[in-house]
């Protein structure tokens, strides 16, 4: 009986953790808006709202509602200690912060192909594209775009296996990143 209760609880929990995001303008935790053109599944953990179409093991679009001073880029526990965010980082240091956070999360062989300054909403920010391998050797590719605003680091991260899946929803991710509008801009 106890097992049955535990299984039911897990099923209920699993169901409530996800919600459907319909196409249209969505509010990302009160921080900014983005526009999505197709349906996604959504879950939330700390300051990160995650969207996926095929499951988080396949691809994930993570939208942060803002990393505060001393907080970490990733909300889930990581292999190594993540660097704490500091609100006075230059764009170069911001890139290092992202890189070191990924290393702490267990990403291996991180290789940036492009890093450039780029507006995120109305704020001057950073955009980087990079490859990495998971611990088990899966080759993944990622795009991260973000900016510092009001002492917080807001970002959107898209990552998926480099083979097929990254390209499959890359354009969706790019469109969503371009659609960012901070609430104060509206």
């Amino acid at each position, binding site marked *: 009986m106890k097992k049955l209760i535990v299984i039911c609880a897990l099923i209920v929990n699993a169901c409530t953790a996800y919600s459907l995001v319909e196409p249209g303008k969505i509010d990302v935790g009160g921080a900014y808006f983005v526009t999505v053109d197709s349906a996604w599944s959504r879950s939330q953990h700390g300051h990160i709202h995650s969207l996926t179409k095929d499951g988080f093991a396949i691809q994930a679009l993570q939208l942060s509602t803002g990393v505060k001073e001393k907080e970490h880029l990733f909300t889930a526990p990581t292999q*190594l*200690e993540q*660097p704490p965010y*500091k609100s*006075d980082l*230059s*764009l*170069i*240091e911001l*890139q290092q912060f992202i890189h*070191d956070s990924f*290393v*702490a999360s267990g*990403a*291996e*062989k991180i290789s*940036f*192909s*492009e*890093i*450039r*300054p780029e507006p995120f909403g109305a704020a*001057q920010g*950073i955009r980087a594209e990079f490859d*990495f*391998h*998971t*611990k*088990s*050797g*899966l080759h993944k590719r990622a795009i991260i775009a973000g900016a510092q605003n009001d002492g917080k680091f807001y970002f959107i991260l898209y990552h998926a296996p480099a083979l097929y899946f990254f390209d499959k929803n890359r354009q969706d991710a790019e469109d969503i990143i371009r659609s960012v509008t901070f609430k104060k801009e509206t």
Partner: protein
Amino acid sequence: MIFSCSRLLCLFAASVVISACQTTGTSKWVPAGSSAADISTAENHILAGQDAVGAQDINFEIGKNPYAYKDIPPGVRPALDTREAGIWLQLDKIEEKQKSAGNRVQDEKLNSYLTEIACKMSGPYCQDVRVYTQRIPLFNATMAPNGMMTIYTGFLLRTQNEAQLASVLGHEVGHYIRRHSIQGLDDTVAKSDFSAVFGILAAGMGAPGVADLMNLALISSQFSFNRDHEREADLIGINLLHLRGYDTREAANVWKLLVRERDPDKDPDEVSTSTSFSSTHPSDGERLKSLTAISNKLQGPDKWGVTNEERFDKIVGPWKFRFLQDEVRLRNWKNSLALLEILEEYGHDKAEIAFFQGEIYRNRDKKADEDAEDEDDRIADIDRALKAYEKCLALPGTPAEAYRAAGLIYHKKSNHEKSRAALNRYLQLKPNAKDRKLIQYMINNSGSVSS
């Protein structure tokens, strides 16, 4: 409680099999039923007929007859109908994953070198040992029962010459030959079985608390058993080191340097040799002391072997910059600074040392405490970092990254002219830098808030 303790023993057994060991080992072919004291006279595939030091020659407190297993012969896998073969098959699967692991270092030159040294130390077991290098910034090397040896890059960073490398690889080879993993597993299963039966009997007699005490004693003896394996592996490792003509003092030096790094305020020679009952390995102090004693027995003042420092530097040296980058990301500031001091003593490039000191201070970013009594605490890390970077820039062989880092510090200190000059220099040295556009943006906007 009884159940949880039994489970603890089982978990321990699993970890023994999978993780095998952490650096150092020994080995010999000891017929079943012989004692540890026979180690220097038993048939041994490597040490037979050689000038070896045995357990009786030093003051190891090895338990009574814990090593009642025959060594695995060279080129042999366990028979398929044995439990040991099942464990090997499981590890073969893990090894398959290891081959494509994301953190595996695939550099042919480095791997060939490490395999060569492992092979040299393994002798007739060369064909049985496969080396995998993993980009993990921790001091460790492991040996699985099926011959899968894993070397962490954090260990390579802390190794200063080939003799030190060989001493640890010899230790790992010892674990393989002596079948320590399977011995540990069998010991754990036996103790777990005993614990379960004892628990039932104790509960039946109305004294369940006695079973808890017994379980604690069993767990303690399990750790002790593991420590003895490590001691035996140390013994084999240093004997092999001697037989292959290396300077045996370097086996102790591995631990001496580690002690210095882990506790920079202590004199390594005065570090405690006592070991906690729950330690899986002998203390660093004990290993330092015992390996020094064995070394003195094996090689006299006029017959120290070679260290092959030059060859080691040629192959492993170029990797150390990357390993140090990994080290800084561990955020173990005090230990990393101590490690840099050690590397400097061993002749590591001074510009790189200064650069990484700067990196540590820049990342630690401790603010100055104006009211502190200690003068050192009144200095902000940003100033320490700048001093280290400036020292680096004045030395030959400055890494390009030092100019970028200095540029960042100058920028924070609103010295925009110097910031631009340093960042421009970085771009000159690294014209294809991936962060070129960011750097250029920063140069163009130096002085504005958004840069």
